[in-house]
């Protein structure tokens, strides 16, 4: 059974390239561009990994992360993407429980290597 990844990102072109790359890794890929819809998906598909953009319209990635923790859903692995590399963002993400924090722009090989590591594949 293939591992399941949910990409929560409002930039459709980043979603497209990431989906393509993860699909080639044999992963089941879902995508959402909105925080509220992402929570529903998490509860429904119970992903093994959530790739979460920190800056989303309406609700930030940090808010979504808190929602996941507050819900009864089993906590998936979380890889947070951000364009802001400030130490305080990284610290906040680590305090909330992010498994990995990556800043944009990242390389394909870098993100794929980290995702493989997180999922143990």
């Amino acid at each position, binding site marked *: 059974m293939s591992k399941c990844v949910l990409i929560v990102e409002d*930039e459709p*072109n*980043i979603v*497209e*390239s*990431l989906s*393509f*790359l993860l699909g*080639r890794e044999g992963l089941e890929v879902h995508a959402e561009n909105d925080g509220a819809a992402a929570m529903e998906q998490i509860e429904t598909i119970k992903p093994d990994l959530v790739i979460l953009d920190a*800056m989303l319209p309406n609700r930030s990635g940090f808010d979504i992360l808190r929602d996941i923790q507050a819900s009864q859903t089993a906590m998936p692995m979380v890889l947070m993407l951000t*364009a*802001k590399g400030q130490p305080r963002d990284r610290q906040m993400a680590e305090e909330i429980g992010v498994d990995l924090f990556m800043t*944009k*722009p*990242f*390389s*394909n090989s870098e993100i794929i290597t980290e995702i493989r590591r997180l999922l143990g594949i």
Partner: protein
Amino acid sequence: MRKSLAGTRVREARRKSGMTQKALAEAASISASYLNLIEHNRRAVAGKVLLGIARALSVPVTALTDGAESALLGDLHEAAAHRSDANIETESVDELISRYPGWAGLLAGLYRQSKDQETAIAALSDRLTHDPFLAESLHSMLSNITAIRSTSNILKNIDDIEPEQQSRFHNIIHEESRRLSDAAQALVTYFNHASDQSGGSATPEEELDRFLRQHEYIFPELDNGEADISDILTQESMLNNTESRELAKGFLILYAKDAAQMPLAAFAKTAKECAFNPDILAQQFDADLASIFRRLSGLKRPDIDAPEMGLIVVNAAGRAVLRRPLRNFALPRHGNACPRWPLFQAFTQPDRPITALLDLPGGQQFICLAVAGDIRGKGFGTLPEYQASMLFIASEVLPVVKSWLPATGTAQKIGISCRICPRANCPVRAEPQILASVSEIL
């Protein structure tokens, strides 16, 4: 102890006037040997003797006293403290000012310029960190770059891509490149605009200060109704950015309001008749004390005999919104003022005037009147906005105002700003002193 150099100033002034020691001594009714000791700073000079010398030299007393260059002194001390590693001879600063006033002024001017630039850089840094447009633009550009980098990498390294998918990736690169270009162009436009707005390294407050000093805080064209505010601002070339023009406009609006409410000739006449009593002036002109202070601080002119008065107005955060220093009472250009100024005490009892006699570290004394009040209209749902105003007058004017001035008690020891204040054991010190050898000064 800090050495008094009043004698050096007497000597310089005498030489300028072309008088001999003997002639000056006779004119001042003192012996030539005593004058000689004074001129070599071996005898203190004050009171009647100083007054007699000043009269004989036809110069104001303040030109000979130690506080004559207090603003310059403060700036030079602060400049020296900033380079405490340079072993600067701070004990010779008085001598530097007395003997080489031009060089001292240049040094202080360069220091002030450097401080202004530091302030401007700090403001720009703050702007770069917190500006929402910049944050949004940079986030957007990094996302564009991420998409381009990822997609182009896929196209370069993966051969077996379906033609339809390949076409979509090409479109992504095209689309993201265009968005990146647009975002970069928007940033360039933004920075060009910001650069046009800032116009130079001075902060808006510094530009306002310069503008007001240039006009000596007086705008006769508003007093006599010959010009309006927009005429003055249109002709003004010293105000290089929107913010400083807005500040100047705010000042001129108040000035014009005061001029309309307190016409200059009538105000000057009444002021002289009541010995510059703010209470009487407030009643006569139906004005609040803050307005009276503003008008009084701008009263002395070539054709109006009035004492010189300084003024500072601060908001509730302690930020100076108007500064009109006196030669002997410098107002800090950077950082906060002395917490002991009655100005701040006034905030604790709004609308209740405070009178005090102040004693500066150099020994100069000033009569001070302070009042705080809400500058917004009072009404339900209106948030108050408090400002405090402090008018200060050299204590030599005491005989003029003593008929109405309440008892001030003992002079309160104050400073200009904690950073350059030599009062070593002040219990209300808010910042560490940065002066070397401060304990020796008092």
